[in-house]
């Protein structure tokens, strides 16, 4: 089922959470809404579900205008951040809930059969008689997914689905969710503030800031060509050096960077920690090493440019230089953005 949002607006009291967002999610696609807290991503998800009504704009499921369809008739599967399992029901009863309250009557045997199938799907066979309080967080999240899938939803919506879990469990569940999505082919929209999760899992990433879409595209698109400094910073560690643009060139302490198309004035040069080479002499911005941190697979160097800017970069574990040494940072893949919005 294709989902379209057309200029959707939501205001809470005086706070505008979502400013005219338009978005298309193709049938069978897995899309991530990525943004910092307060970016409106959860509000958008809740409007698609019908848990909030849009103040303006339209939401379509296929060709049907779903804007005013109440949540219980909208046919969405929703997985909540903290699972929202019914604590007084067993795992099996939780999964069966949607089928029991449905207008479509099913026989007890049909419900039991479907619950068995779903327990198999989420790899929790044998745990049907446990209560949610008796299973682990990762298992609870899988029960929540099974419960959402039990009613054969037209779309699957997940709100920070792995936010409350350990890093390891999170990675496993991510791969597993991707597999389930590929097997079932259900249109899926999920919300996260974790860029790694979004890039790992989604076909397409929609990056939001302050209630607006700032960029959308495949993980490759958004990683390789971030539209602005916000996206660049939000997707991962980034260093920034203030620069001045003159005649299509940006200058950081006399070091020249290409800045074609940028108006003269102040700008920022952004680059990833991995895109720096340390030189003892020659080209680059002059800097001094402040600290060297060791990590399992690399060394992270904290340095300060002679202009007083702190920067961080990653080097091979064999990096021989020590605190206090002076040299030059040679920046690969720099990105120059006009100052202002960040």
């Amino acid at each position, binding site marked *: 089922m294709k989902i379209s949002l057309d200029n959707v607006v939501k205001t809470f009291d005086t706070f505008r959470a979502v400013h005219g967002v338009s978005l298309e999610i193709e049938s069978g696609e897995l899309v991530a809404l990525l943004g910092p807290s307060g970016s409106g991503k959860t509000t958008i998800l809740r409007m698609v*579900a*019908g*848990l909030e009504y849009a103040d303006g704009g339209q939401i379509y499921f296929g060709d049907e205008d779903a804007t005013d369809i109440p*949540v*219980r*008739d*909208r046919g*969405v*599967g*929703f997985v*909540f951040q*903290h699972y*929202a*399992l*019914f*604590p*007084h*029901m*067993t795992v099996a009863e939780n999964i069966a*809930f*949607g089928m*029991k*309250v*449905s*207008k479509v009557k099913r026989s007890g045997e049909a419900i039991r059969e479907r619950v068995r199938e779903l327990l198999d799907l989420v790899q929790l066979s044998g745990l049907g008689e*446990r*209560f*949610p*309080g*008796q299973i682990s967080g990762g298992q609870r999240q899988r029960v929540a997914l099974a*419960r*959402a899938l*039990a*009613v054969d939803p037209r779309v699957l919506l997940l709100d920070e689905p792995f936010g409350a879990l350990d890093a390891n469990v999170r990675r496993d569940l991510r791969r597993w969710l991707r597999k389930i999505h590929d097997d079932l082919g259900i249109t899926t929209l999920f919300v996260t503030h974790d860029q790694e999760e979004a890039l790992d899992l989604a076909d397409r990433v929609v990056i939001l800031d302050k209630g607006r879409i700032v960029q959308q595209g495949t993980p490759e698109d958004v990683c390789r060509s971030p539209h602005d400094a916000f996206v660049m910073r939000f997707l991962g560690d980034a260093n920034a050096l203030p620069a001045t643009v003159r005649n299509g060139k940006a200058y950081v302490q006399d070091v020249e960077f290409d800045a074609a198309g940028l108006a003269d004035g102040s700008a920022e040069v952004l680059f990833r920690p991995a895109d720096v080479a340390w030189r003892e002499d020659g080209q680059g911005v002059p800097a001094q090493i402040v600290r060297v941190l060791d990590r399992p697979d690399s060394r992270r160097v904290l340095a300060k440019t002679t202009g007083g800017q702190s920067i961080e970069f990653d080097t091979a574990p064999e990096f021989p230089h020590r605190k206090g040494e002076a040299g030059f940072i040679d920046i690969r893949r720099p990105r120059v953005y006009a100052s202002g919005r960040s």
Partner: protein
Amino acid sequence: MKRRVLPGLPLSLGITLVYAAIIIVLPLIALVFKAASLGPADYWRIVTSDRAVASYVVTVSCALAATLFNVVFGMALAWVLVRYRFPGRRIIDALVDLPFALPTAVAGISLTTLFAVNGWFGGPLSALGIKVAYTPLGIMIAMAFTSLPFVVRTVQPVLEELDPALEEAAQTLGGSDLSIFARVVLPLLTPALLAGVSLSFARSLGEFGAIIFIAGNQPFETEITALLAFIRLEEYDYPASAAIASVMLIAAFVMLAVTNIMQARALRYTVRN
């Protein structure tokens, strides 16, 4: 003895136990001893006398009716106070505690004045043929008035803590308002509701001050057990009074045990394995 991190166990436990012994256990033991000073035959004769049995029937049936009323009305009140924001909400919230704060005799006299045949409520009601003052209905109203806060105050915090995502989840799964209330909200409120019910019922069984003014106190009709015990006391028949009181005591214990078992059952999902 094991070393403890938290200080003050011997002192606080000592004070608590002494206090509990003097204030709670000692009077109960005295009561049991006084009742036991009667022989078994006399005891049985007194507690099963027609007048005593009639008083049990009046007390228990009125207390049941009052508690049932409080379950419905108290839960509705708690629901409204927690779920909605409206002008005057805080005043109503404060008013809920009034029956606790008001001397029960004052409550009894006010209710009697209101529900007497020439009172504000009693007048119109008697025109409809409903008599409240000096009938079991009056007893029921007095009981309901004094025990209402128990249900509201036990249900309210649980309702406040109820995760709204549970109801939202039930909605996304297609549940109607009624089925969400019956299958999700009510079962989660049940333990608190049971606690409120048992307190409300216990209070109703033992209520005295508010009732004697409105009840009319006719033996076999509107005489409650607490009053009968009091009458025996006035007649200096202490053992008989203690015997009747012991029946109330046993009833209270049985009821607490039953509600505890029911609560444990309702909370069995919280037991980790």
